[in-house]
């Protein structure tokens, strides 16, 4: 069964016909040719499909497209301004370049979106599993970064570079 939904993707209004079985990830990748979000597992286990959905990081492989009619989505591409000629990188993206926080690049758009989400969550005082004081403002220690970024696997093992990148972006 098909349904038509509207999405705002990286600032552009898009209308797309989806199967009711279509995930948000497949709607983006296969129907809209928006391929910055990657499919590493399709089961919510790797984080490579992470985007900012209505401002918060979200796994698009675990979201059904029809349930997100009207949603606003920002991908790693959109964080850099969107469009083929845009080269204004988001500070998180610049930090990934500065610290070589990637190798093959397949986890990277998800890591970047996740890092942007993490910085925002910390700013808003959200605690994590390793936050000692649940009442106060969390400090973005290395352990906090590692914990909060652990939903994004990197098989290339670029974690030390990712850590340094998030640290840099947090200070920026």
């Amino acid at each position: 069964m098909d349904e038509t939904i509207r999405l705002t993707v990286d600032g552009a209004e898009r209308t797309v016909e989806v199967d009711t079985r279509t995930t948000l990830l497949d709607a983006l990748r296969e129907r809209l040719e928006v391929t910055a979000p990657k499919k590493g597992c399709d089961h919510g286990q790797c984080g490579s499909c992470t985007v900012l959905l209505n401002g918060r990081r979200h796994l698009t492989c675990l979201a059904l497209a029809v349930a997100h009619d009207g949603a606003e989505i920002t991908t790693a591409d959109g964080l850099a301004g969107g469009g083929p000629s845009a080269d204004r990188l988001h500070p998180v993206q610049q930090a990934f370049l500065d610290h070589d926080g990637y190798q093959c690049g397949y986890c990277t758009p998800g890591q970047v979106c996740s890092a942007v989400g993490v910085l925002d969550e910390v700013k808003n005082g959200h605690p994590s599993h390793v936050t000692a004081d649940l009442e106060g403002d969390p400090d973005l220690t290395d352990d906090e970064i590692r914990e909060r970024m652990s939903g994004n696997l990197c098989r290339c093992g670029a974690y030390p570079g990712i850590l340094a990148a998030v640290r840099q972006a947090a200070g920026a």
Partner: protein
Amino acid sequence: MSVEQQTTPVRVRSIGTHLDRVDGVAKVTGRAPYAVEHGEADGVVDPLHLWLVQSTVAKGVVVDVDTESARDHPGVIAVLDHASAPRLAESDDGELAILQEPTVHFRGQIVALVLAETSEAAREGAALVNVSYDVEPHEAELREDNASYRPDSVNPDMETDTEEGDVDAAIAAADIVVEQTYRTAYEHNNPLEPHATVAWWDEEDGREILSMFDSSQGVHGVAQTLAPMLGLEVDQVRVRAPYVGGGFGSKGEAHAHVMATALAARTVRGRPVKLAVTRQQMFALTGYRTATISHVRLGAGADGRLAAIEHRVQEQSSALKEYAEQTASPTRMMYAAPHRRTSHRLALLDVAVPSWMRAPGEMPGMFAHEVAMDELAVECGLDPIELRIRNEPELDPETKKPFNNRRLLDCFRRGAERFGWSSRPAHARATQDGDWWVGTGVASATYPAMRMPGNAARVRSLGAGRYAVAIGSVDIGTGARTVLTQIAADALGVEPGAIDLAIADTRLPPASVAGGSSGTSSWGSAVVAAAQRFRADHGEHPDPGVETTASAADDPQADELAFHSFGSVFAEARVHRWTGEIRVPRLLGVYSVGRVINPTTARSQFIGGLVMGLSAGLFEESYRDARFGHMVTQDLASYHVASHADVLDIDAEWLEESDEVFTPMGSRGIGEIGIVGTAAAVANATYHATGMRVRSIPITPDRFLES
């Protein structure tokens, strides 16, 4: 036309310095297109989607494939099975010759294909195909007492067995003997980008052409493998792989899904067919590292000097296709000993086909050998680094050739200094910090330096001091695109910005696989050869459009020497006394690998290897249920790979050096050595922490709760 060129060492300017990855912006923005992400601009117009139907039995014969309800499902275009799939011209390669016969060789084998207009319809269609089987009994368990045989050679073409002196007599006469069995688990490469292919057939100048984007470590290899099976000339298959989301060996050769896509596309000529293998399917179809059982005997004098080294390996392959992991190969060259023996025996099981995984042979073999060395150090009352100093060979024990630059001990000295080794307590179970036992361990790392035949590069003048450089090699995340740009720039004596590099297309000059840590050495030497020949033919001010294609001749000295890289790995482990939880707060690798071309990408390669070694040491295990013949851990929730929170202070450094006999750049290769010895260093550190010896990986918390 390609000529062979004797190269001379490159005058380095960009080589050895940092250069941002040339594809970095494309990667951090997600604009870099991976295999199934190519769209209309690349000729992938209105693709169909393919889904694989896999056998649910381990051995038997397909008696019926009921496709009716699948074909009735809206959007499904066709279902192919062994009766309806296109015939192959050659079917010797049992892994790739899919759908040619009804026989089932392993659980998870491809038994049908579903083509549909959308991926949702293809997937649903695949679920609706009803396959019935005549089931036969199968064997899927690797045991010490499996029926096994001696393969003719082990990967890639090494001796199966080696023997020198009289091992049994030397062991009988030794003051100290270590005799133990070490085990490594089944492991799956699990690159983060699942294997994926898009293929379409059309005509060019009256000839059939099969075009593909494939997530591959070597496009030329895919074309060479597929073409004869499909009854085509190699140049009728065009394969491109501009971006590949990791491979670690599993994309080194075409696996069955690539053939599935090519066959399905042949039935819908003109229309592209996309296949994205699922994470679950990868556990049956895209290769894995065999589990290994290593019987090791070391015989030494009281001073720790080895008289005898024996390493006998029992492992498995698929009855469908032999792959013999060269697990004992590093044991042949690592330490001095007059009496030595290695052997490999294979059980052929009714299971999926194993293949390359990062440092095949060295990774499991050095786990066994380096834990055994740690045990010997304990038995002799020696520091483990001192034990290695005492067993340093003068010549390569295997070939009796001099090593070119064996600097293992320099790696230990540097590592010891940086890691603070001198303050280490001599005895195990000596340090407690709250509820944690704390210890440190070391292991050696080694990897052979390899340069592959069959590489050529092309240099063309673009005018105004710019050059187009082309070679069909693939960048799977190693940084090849960046380092080849640097090599080309230095070889031509220009800035990296003056180089337009083209890679990853079979229409470019041939390149060997991105594997065996041989890529940069093999391709880089070809680039240098082409650049030097170009300058010789066309001078410093070439006319726009002139070009040269060349391959590199081997250095005549190279035959006289044994080329290996070396390293030392230092680990600190903390083991929780009540839960057995293991943390590795520090991991350091120090390497001797020839000249490092780009320190930034090299560091990431070493660290990536160390992380994967840590992951193998603590987490990774594909668990096969022998009753059914398949891996029950078949996703990233049940097959654990190191996550960010598992990786604490990990670093790598390297010795300043240059190996210009091996390559004109002075480099030797770095991709795999980081994984070698790492799990052993972690295991040795957990022993030092707890006094409990674990002889198999992964080292899970329960191991420390047993006594």
